[in-house]
């Protein structure tokens, strides 16, 4: 356990501050592992540590960070997992990445992902699927699968990803690491290649809860480039709770009952964690989220609708792929988009275009927005009685590559328990809660908007009690 890459990011930063290791040494250790990785977790890896700019003195002490491909990074490929952006190097850097660099976390590499963040298995990447380090025949989850696999496999000390309907939490669960989706607006979206603007949110994927708190602390805040970003009330405290005394946990029957199709091993683990939480002093009671079962339907109208517009800019005119149209504009558009987008992206563009079409708008997009409001109200009501809502993160553990690709609807069910929080814009965290048949299981806690510090505290107390060991995945 003396390997540098076995340290959590916070522990590595501690060593750097104590001058036991140099930032460049740590960077090189990870860079070498990342460059040699056989999980296809990265789409680009830095070839040298950044010049010593005194980052050892910065809050994050020079501990490098892996960044999901869809974050724009100046001069570095930023392709959002899509062939239509193959080789695209943006002229500017996303706010969140710039803030991390400023806080002393330089860019280690860009991680593979489902194309335009559309997927739950990373099999939709234009650059090939990512393998799960716990079992290479299985998926790492998605869409931030590269980030999750890299952190789990010790190819990065920590990473950032984005979560639209579960894209941080679900791969974190399937890879046995921590994943946090902050309150919508907590972190700037500027420079994130958009999937669904009203849902996309950046967040950390880390080995433990403390590391997640550290990344969050340095990425939150109002950004003048993002009108939907918000000033975060207060600071993110480092978690230190040792128990859950006085914490009221709500168990939503609508999500954790039979309807979600939760695997027995996952359900068993969930019940065990509930019992553990009670042992730590929490009170646990059922709660109602009446409209939550409709979340998936609403999500698969709203997200594709926004995506259909967000992806219109990939037209072959200014950047990225262009396939010649024999002097005809429409043919150029059509050939470019046909060649550049994968099947899932095309499916969602068509779904979204249809949902917004004249004559269908009210029935589809309009109704979905009403459902979204109802879901947010349900949470609001629930949080009058409960501190947090708890569910399994995913209905199942990592599944075999190719086992769900033929059935998009089955694939969409991955998000059954993560999508409601996304629609409500509230923070939720997934922590590794044990193994089922040798594969990691995730436990999700969701709190009211801007409750991140309390949420991290509760997750931290549980994490200590669970004592999950993820070293197996680092080989």
């Amino acid at each position, binding site marked *: 356990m003396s390997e540098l890459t076995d340290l959590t990011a916070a522990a590595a930063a501690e060593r750097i501050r104590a001058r036991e290791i140099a930032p460049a040494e740590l960077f090189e250790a990870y860079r070498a592992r990342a460059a040699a990785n056989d999980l296809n977790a990265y789409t680009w890896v830095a070839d040298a540590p950044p010049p010593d700019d005194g980052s050892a003195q910065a809050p994050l002490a020079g501990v490098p960070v892996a960044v999901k491909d869809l974050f*724009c990074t100046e001069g570095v490929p930023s392709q959002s997992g899509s062939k239509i952006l193959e080789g695209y190097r*943006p002229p500017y850097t996303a706010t969140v990445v710039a803030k991390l660099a400023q806080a002393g976390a330089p860019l280690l590499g860009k991680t593979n992902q489902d194309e335009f963040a559309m997927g739950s298995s990373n099999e939709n990447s234009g650059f090939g699927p990512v393998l799960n380090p716990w079992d290479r025949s299985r998926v790492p989850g998605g869409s931030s699968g590269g980030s999750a696999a890299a952190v789990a496999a010790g190819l990065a000390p920590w990473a950032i990803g984005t979560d639209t309907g579960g894209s941080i939490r679900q791969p974190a669960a399937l890879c046995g690491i921590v994943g946090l989706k902050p309150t919508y607006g907590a972190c700037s979206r*500027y420079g994130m*290649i958009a999937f669904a603007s009203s849902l996309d949110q950046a967040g950390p994927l880390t080995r433990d809860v403390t590391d997640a708190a550290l990344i969050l602390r340095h990425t939150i805040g109002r950004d003048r480039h993002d009108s939907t970003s918000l000033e975060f009330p207060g600071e993110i405290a480092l978690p230190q709770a040792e128990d859950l005394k006085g914490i009221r946990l709500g168990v939503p029957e609508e999500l954790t009952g039979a309807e979600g199709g939760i695997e027995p091993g996952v359900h068993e683990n969930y019940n065990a964690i509930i019992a553990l939480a009670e042992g730590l002093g929490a009170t646990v009671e059922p709660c109602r989220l009446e409209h939550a079962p409709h979340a998936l339907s609403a999500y698969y109208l709203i997200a594709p609708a*926004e995506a259909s517009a967000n992806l219109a*800019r990939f037209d072959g005119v200014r950047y990225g792929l262009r396939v010649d149209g024999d002097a005809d504009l429409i043919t150029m558009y059509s050939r470019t988009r046909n060649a550049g987008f994968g099947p899932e992206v095309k499916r969602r563009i068509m779904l979204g275009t249809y949902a917004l*079409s004249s004559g269908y708008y009210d029935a589809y997009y309009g109704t979905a927005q009403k459902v979204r409001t109802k879901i947010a109200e349900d949470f609001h009501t629930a949080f009058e009685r409960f501190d947090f809502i708890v569910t399994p993160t995913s209905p199942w553990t990592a599944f075999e590559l190719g086992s769900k690709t033929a059935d998009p609807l089955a694939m969409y069910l991955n998000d059954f328990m993560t999508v409601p929080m996304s629609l409500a814009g509230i923070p939720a965290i997934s922590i590794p809660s044990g193994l089922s048949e040798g594969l990691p299981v995730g436990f999700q806690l969701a709190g009211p908007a801007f409750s991140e510090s309390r949420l991290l505290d509760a997750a931290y107390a549980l994490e200590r009690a669970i004592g999950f060991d993820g070293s197996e995945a680092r080989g």
Partner: protein
Amino acid sequence: MSPLTPEYEPVIGLEIHVQLSTRTKMFCGCRLSFNDPPNIHTCPTCLGLPGALPVVNARAIHFGIMIGLALGCEIAERSLFHRKNYFYPDLPKGYQISQYDVPLCRGGRLGDVRIHRVHLEEDAAKLNHLGASGRIHGSDRSWVDFNRGGTPLVEIVTEPDLRSPEQAREWPALLRTTLRQLGVSDVNMEEGSLRVDANVSVRPVGSTQLGTKTELKNMNSFRFLERGVRAEISRQIALLERGEPVMQETLHFDPATDTLTPLRSKEEAHDYRYFPEPDLVPVLATEEMLAAARADLPTELPAERAARFETELGLNADTARLFAFRTELGDYFERALAAAGGNGEQREVDPVELSNWIPQLVERIGSDADPAGSNVAPESLATLATMVKAKEVSRDAAREVLTRLVQEGGDPRAIVEREGLGALTAEDDGLGKLIDRALAADPAAVNQVRSGNMKAIGPLVGYVMRETKGRADGGEITRLIRARLGL
């Protein structure tokens, strides 16, 4: 020949796009420019690069509220931006950010035309086509200049209240003056900062139903606008006369030939799939913002000025509007009025008399010239008008004096004195003798006048006026003749 047959009435509504003269673009910090080298005022946002986000320009909202207040609109406390989706190379995001069903301003009126709505949006980039047509079809190569892309626009939509091609030229001129006075736009049609599209339909006179309308584009001057609308009215009437229907379509006006050609249906057959722009938050027009906009309004807008000229000074409606729409004429008029004794009760010059002389002046200095730059000082024109009113100089002679003033400047009294252009009055011997000669020369007319046919006095008066070369006033001559005949 008028294209309007009396059986049909045109119904015209206008959609006016106005580029706001903010310092920066609608949703990013790039500077506004005109005729700069291409693509130097761009950034990730106005190029639609992946990951870039829009941020609303607060100054554009301020200007939008000013326009709304000036047009008497209701300002929405909360308005929304939507995405208007369509593919075109001048639209880098694949959608235009515009306001849709919750615009910044609703209702209102300017002059005799009601305003339907005023909303904010972003301009498209500029396409340049290399090739004979100058349009995208059949061009050899096209390129895009994104300097213009993202320029703040307001779209002002009128109710279909206009009824003639002339009105379609005149009303936008009032709007342009109003916007210019607000200082919110350069309102230059040649440079494209003011663009007017017209929706035109015709219907039988007396009908209250609207006919099928067509949309006319590319009319980049008020004159073209009038011609385009006139041509389209003729075309529609001709169709209806032949028993053929008017098709709802968008037409491109070619000012070189006065013809209208349909835009290819592919260019306009759109379902724009509007939905609320998720990258922006609603625009909240606070009391502070309204107060700030109100404080920036000029004390008197052109429509208010026209009303004041008409009701307080007694000018006829056409002249009042002319002076209000062409602020330089209104300003000159008011300076002349002030020079001649101000606006007090003891006004020395009659405003109506004075107002008649300004078009005369404009006729002599060129219709687009500013009289303030001419040789005629406002007080000189006021003096001339006063002399006419006091019958010190006849109207005909005064026109001659004005011509001299335009040529050499100076004081009208001195010119009248020097040239001997003063009015001949009853006290003048010469006038009495001329009247005697007129009566002697046409005894038949004299007899008719004596027997009560007053119309017969015309030739007698005309004779005297000719002989005095216009120096005597017609009314005065009539009075003198009647007195001479004992009537």
